[in-house]
């Protein structure tokens, strides 16, 4: 009987344990704002700002860091499914995912707040940075037009070159190559003195996608790239083959550092900062990373050398990280108030100084480092898949990126890749029509 009693007790305790874990915490008079993010390098600065905000307003702000970004992304998705997202959070993913979050009521429409006082808050941001969080009228995602997030900093993804290694190879450190031909010539000169060429974290396939997209814009222009995504131009078009052929040229001319396609970006950053190669393809966040790895690294930022002069070279850029407000949050108003405070010039200047990231507020650009200023100059050439209004099918992107990797290791040709990608595109379009 005693055993029976013990088991009955255990049977009750176990469910009670799980139920109590799901219990809601009692609310205090002043709310605590919880923010989830993945930005390890920014956590100390965020914590300092949270302390300052609490001193000023009495409202406690908890910045909860969940890194790396892959794990963070999964956490946010799981929380969305369980409707347990925090008051403020960042979203990593494509515009399609962003739209799904909005349609599932996980994101508050910030348009009324941004447009208050004749759009005062909106006008403080770089327009391109805010555009990443915007859904325009008649967007293909079926989302009500408006702004659904605010950027806290901005970024551009460009090429970087090592000035010291340039000098060693007899190249002018103040005139980095501007055209593809000049770039290949520079690589040849560098190789003659035993210096490797370009490094990038192409083990993370989105970065290879990014460079391919830059050259697609340069070779065929925005209209044709978007027409391809819409299914109006096939990937077998000669212009796309020209884009893919650049990766073949990079292979043939030994432009790339060995092992580039199994390399995560952190490794690529180490190689560039340790002066093992002359060029890198990386985002503006690298300024902070390189500073930590090699404070005396002498380098400059440049646009990827252009192949065609018919269209401008466009690089990915805009909002580096944005914060969204949970539409189900009980502290929605306070969360928006905090974001207004966080994106004000004073806080943005502090964030830029502390983290070496480009501020999202245009009025906070004073005193940023020279290389960061070079990245800022590229803002006018930025574009981003999240502002195109259309999204490519993920299966097509995957095929394309892996195909480019295969070209680099000599297992595919530009023509074959074009056919493979188009085949997947046709399949996905047929599926979407169903």
């Amino acid at each position, binding site marked *: 009987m005693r055993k029976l009693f013990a*088991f009955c007790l255990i049977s009750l305790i*176990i469910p009670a344990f799980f139920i109590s874990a799901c219990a809601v915490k009692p609310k205090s008079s002043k709310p605590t704002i919880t923010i989830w993010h993945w930005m390890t390098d920014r956590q100390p600065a965020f914590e300092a700002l949270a302390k300052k905000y609490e001193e000023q307003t009495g409202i406690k702000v908890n910045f909860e860091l969940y890194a790396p970004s892959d794990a963070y992304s999964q956490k946010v998705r799981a929380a969305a499914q369980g409707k347990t997202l925090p008051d403020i959070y960042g979203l990593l993913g494509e515009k*399609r995912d962003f739209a799904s979050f909005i349609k599932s009521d996980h994101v508050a429409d910030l348009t009324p707040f941004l447009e208050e006082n004749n759009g005062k808050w909106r006008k403080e941001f770089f327009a391109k940075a805010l555009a990443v969080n915007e859904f325009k009228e008649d967007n293909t995602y079926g989302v009500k037009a408006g702004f659904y997030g605010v950027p806290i900093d901005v970024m551009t993804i460009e090429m970087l070159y090592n000035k010291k290694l340039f000098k060693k190879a007899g190249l002018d450190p103040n005139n980095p190559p501007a055209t593809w031909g000049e770039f290949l010539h520079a690589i040849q000169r560098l190789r003659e003195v035993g210096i490797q060429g370009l490094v990038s974290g192409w083990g993370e396939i989105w970065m290879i996608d990014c460079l391919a997209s830059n050259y697609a814009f340069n070779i065929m222009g925005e209209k044709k790239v978007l027409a391809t995504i819409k299914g109006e131009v096939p990937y077998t078009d000669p212009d796309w083959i020209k884009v893919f052929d650049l990766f073949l040229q990079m292979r043939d001319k030994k432009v790339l550092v060995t092992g580039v396609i199994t390399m995560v970006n952190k490794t690529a950053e180490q190689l560039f900062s340790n002066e093992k190669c002359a060029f890198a393809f990386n985002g503006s966040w690298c300024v902070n990373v390189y500073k930590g790895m090699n404070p005396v690294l002498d380098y400059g930022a440049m646009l990827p050398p252009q192949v065609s002069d018919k269209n401008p070279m466009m690089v990915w850029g805009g909002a580096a990280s944005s914060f969204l407000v949970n539409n189900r949050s009980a502290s929605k108003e306070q969360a928006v108030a905090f974001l207004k405070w966080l994106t004000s010039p004073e806080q943005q200047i502090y964030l830029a100084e502390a983290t070496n990231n480009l501020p999202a507020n245009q009025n906070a650009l004073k005193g940023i480092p020279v290389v960061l200023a070079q990245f800022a100059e590229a803002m006018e050439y930025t574009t981003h898949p999240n502002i195109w209004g259309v999204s490519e099918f993920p299966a097509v992107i995957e095929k394309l990126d892996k195909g480019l990797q295969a070209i680099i*290791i000599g297992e595919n040709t530009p023509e074959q890749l074009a056919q493979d990608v188009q085949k997947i595109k046709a399949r996905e379009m047929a599926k979407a029509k169903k």
Partner: protein
Amino acid sequence: MRIKSTLENYVFVLPAVSIFTIFYIIPFIWVLQLSMFSWDGILPTKIFVGLENFKEIILQDPSWWESMWNAGYITLIALTLQNTVAFLLAWACDREIKMKNFYRVIFFIPPVLSEIVVGMAWRFIINDVDGANIINRMLVSIGLPQLAHNWLSDPKTALTTVALVHSWKGFGWGFLIFLAGLQTIPRELYEAARVDGAGSWRIFKNITLPLMIPVFVLVAILTVLGTMQAFVLILGLVGGEFAGHTSVPVLRILAVMRDSSRFGYACAQGISFGVILVAISFIQYRLSKRYRQA
């Protein structure tokens, strides 16, 4: 009285059944259900597609089958090389040799290490780009510079390198189970055989091997199940799928779920993978049963 006894029995198993149902049965049913939907993992609406996801896996997804092939290759290396090494070491340690307890501890260190740590450490040992590449230096120093190259960045050697590191990491489990199996063989059998004039090879062939068959089956099943599902080590070593060359089913499922937001399809891949693993285990079990009866 009988009702009370029955009730008591049910109450005893209730906690275990509850936990099993909550954490295994319900999620399994949910995954099975999701595998028949097209869902991005966020939207509340899911579109029923029936068996379309399974049809796509079987007929239109070469990258899935490529990942299965890669996992099969790693498993083959593990089944042969890893388990042979594990058995030979266990056999050696079962004999009266000096410091056998020390060896037992040493051989069991790799399996208890974190897979990601092992991956990163071996990457440092092997890789020419961001590591010390001790292997290449050794090859050069012993006069074989022609063999030195980027083991993990060369599509021809990446998968084999992964398989070898996996075998290094995993042989300790087999070693431990084989050793336990060898120690259950009565010593009297060996002594009697020796008295009858049997040599070492004869004893091994006629006593050790037949009595170890159930252990071989167990180790083989565990090796297949463990190796087919390996992916953390690959992430640590290569960082991902390396243009498909080091792609394995779990990495594929992750990529489909995380990068393509196709939760329904990923669930279908998970179910298909589970079915394949169960089928392999069942075949192994049946074969071993038949062999034992023979």
